[in-house]
């Protein structure tokens, strides 16, 4: 018996990332955001999600990837966390795919830095790799506050 799990996938700087479908509340188009001065640089701003105020975290910055081109508008992947909804900004949204648990491997040793901490593992798909994100770690910015490496605007 092969146990499978559904993953919602999205693209960041050419990589495929994914998170289990139940974690994802919804995917929405780019929204106008309100900038939050003094906030950690990974927080792009606040969006109004049907009356709920949701922080938007730029996943590229969060994972230490280069910023996307200014003319490319990101998509919002709104995820459920213990602290309510949080929006993750991604380049593009992918398909919902089914993965087999057997194909999961530990993140490769070459994966460095913070990305290593939030990538739970890698699923080997045909011809590509899916990096599974630990969403709760991604949205917990306490490591940033501790390190004090907020970018000075």
């Amino acid at each position, binding site marked *: 018996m092969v146990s499978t799990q559904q993953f919602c996938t999205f693209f960041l700087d050419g990589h495929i990332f994914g998170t289990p479908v139940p974690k994802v509340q919804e995917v929405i188009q780019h929204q106008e955001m309100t900038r939050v*001065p*003094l906030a950690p640089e990974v927080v792009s701003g606040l969006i*109004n999600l049907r009356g709920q105020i949701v922080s938007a975290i730029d996943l590229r910055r969060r994972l230490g990837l280069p910023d996307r081109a200014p003319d490319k508008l990101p998509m919002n992947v709104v995820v459920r966390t213990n602290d309510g909804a949080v929006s993750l900004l991604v380049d593009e949204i992918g398909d919902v795919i089914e993965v087999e648990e057997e194909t999961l491997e530990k993140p490769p040793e070459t994966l460095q830095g913070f990305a290593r901490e939030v990538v739970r593992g890698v699923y080997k798909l045909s011809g590509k790799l899916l990096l599974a994100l630990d969403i709760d770690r991604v949205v917990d910015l306490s490591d940033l506050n501790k390190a004090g490496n907020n970018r000075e605007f």
Partner: protein
Amino acid sequence: MDDIVKDFLIESRENLDRLDQELVKLESDPSSKDLLGSIFRTIHTIKGSCGFLGFARLEKLAHAGENLLSRLRDGKLTLSKEITTGLLATVDAVRQMLNSIQESGQDGTEDHAALIEQLAALATAPPVPGHSVPASGVSEELLADSGKIGGVLLERGQVRPEDLARALEQQELGRKRIGEILVAHGAAQPEDVLAAQQTIESRNPEAAIETIRVGVTLLDRLMNLVGELVLARNQLLQFSNSTQDAAFQAVSQRMNLIATELQEEVMKTRMQPIGNVWNKFPRTVRDLALNCGKQIRLDMEGQDTELDRTIIEAIKDPLTHLVRNAVDHGIEAAEVRKQAGKNETGILTLRAFHEGGQVNIEITDDGAGLNGQRIRQKAIERGLVSAQHAERMSDHDLFNLIFLPGFSTAEQVTNVSGRGVGMDVVKTNVEKIGGTVDVQSTAGKGTTVKIKIPLTLAIIPALMVTSGGERFAIPQVSLLELVRMETGESGKGIEMVHGAPVYRLRGRLLPLVYLNRELRLSDAAGIQKAQGPAANIVVVQADGQEFGLVVDEITDTEEIVVKPLGKQLKGVTAYSGATIMGDGRVALILDILGLAQRGQVICSRDSALSDKETAATATRQESGTGQQALLVVQCGDQSRMAIPLSLVARLEEFPASAIEFAGTQEVTQYRGQIMPLIRLAQIVSGKKEIAETSVADSRLQVVVYSETGRSVGLIVDRIVDIVDEKLVLQTPSPRRGVLGSSVIQKRVTDLLDVPGVVREVIPGFAESKFSA
């Protein structure tokens, strides 16, 4: 847990809270049959319920309490302090058992044997001589049970107990209704029986359901939804203003009215009378007064004053603290009061009332009052305030020092006759919900603590401003006034000393915080830009400190719905939340207190209590990076001098005519003192006369320096700037009164040895205490 047990817990807790109050009330009015009856019924209900639910230990305890109460009610005992204490202990024990039922489903392992024994002992105390004993024989159950006709009739004195007892016996034989039997025997009037029947029906819960229990989470959810509706309404109104469609406009007007009304009504559902918090106080005061050996009466006015439940929660602890303080430290012991010619019983009054959209709560005691002199001493000892400053403080200002952190420490509780512990916590908690605290006191007459708090926190009026292209909301509670300066005028109004901009507002110096700079919305040069053609200053208040927030534009006031920020933004102290504007976009709500701390308007304990004028200069103290705030002045011969800002008490301007002479020493009258004046130019240049500064220039710039309550004024030609510089002293200067030279703002500047200069001119300055 079974629903039935849950209901039992909720109901019993409410009953116990009421018991606390009623027992304390009974103590002051021991003959009240109504009170006794009510207390007896409550205990009886608990006993009955737990018997039914199988909590044997609890039942046993309740039974012991009930026995004691029944003897009281029958007049076989009169209420004494011991009995009240015993009964209150029973209430506590029952409460403890209820907690254990909630946690484990069991009524605990403690059987309270000692307490039960004590209750039994109290119950068997010798009967009160000469007290009439009502007829026994009527079952206690019946007396307690006001749900039965016999009980009601008995309560009203419309039937004699012995008649009722006989009727009950007959009822058991013949299964007739008690009313019929009583009427048949002529023991009661038919109309009384009918009235009693109606009373019972009205008491019957099924007969008229007027309230239902609703979960708090549901109410919160409702409130959120109404918040959404209010926002949607705002959007709709904005839209309808831009169309000409009359029908649509009419509909949105109606929508507007309905939404407003709905908002008010839903707010009401969350309102609770403040009495819910106060109810615990009679017991607290009684126990505490007994402990301290004091006699205290607690009066309460305005228990019905309603507040949002979140606010009720938030003020519970501060209020308890204030009440305990008043009992512990405020009201004197009976003998002391007697000697002072006061009534031995102290009175503690709690008052609550609405005023101007806010709720005022006053806690007044008629105790000894605060001792201003001792507060002054203590504050100076603790370095909270300079001696000189303390001298000229009004009593009212002095009293409010008790709210400072650091004023209260454990040992002080015994030292100071005033209030001690944790008043700063009280203040912080009240301010957290947008309230204010103030204390007034008259020696020998008593003390009043006044708290002002907003009605609700969910929807608040706010001022909308823009800065650096972003919109922000400033809660109206922290708002004092708005100042707008037109072109040209702004250059005059804002005194631009680099690093510490100030504005003269009606003669007072108001520290300014540039919002765009504080939030790093624009380049560091923004301060010059912001000064541009016009400036808008929002004068706000945080922690008693006024300061001006310079913004680009002031737009409007609006009712906003406060929404919390996510955990990701918890570390940013500049915002207290966010809201959604009429156009659907998010705007941040500024946390004025946080901003003030960021802008270092309130940085340390010192500047928090320094008077408003000096706060302007205190804005930029040493910033921890080895930098030092320096006041750069010019005096004679184009020479620049630097004075550590920490040594500067104030900057003043005097007319030359204010100079008088004491002997050969130039002096001026300053805050009720004679302040010596030193012409810095004379000192550093060594020359005796520098004519041009004395008469020709009619205004004198004076830097006031203070040491242990004595002040001296240093006359300078011009105040150049305030700078944050790393001080690297080079080449010890041969000149008098100069410690050395340094390069400040790319110019060579001498660092003044202020204490040295002062002592050179006035030997023995601040050592002898002449002319205090």
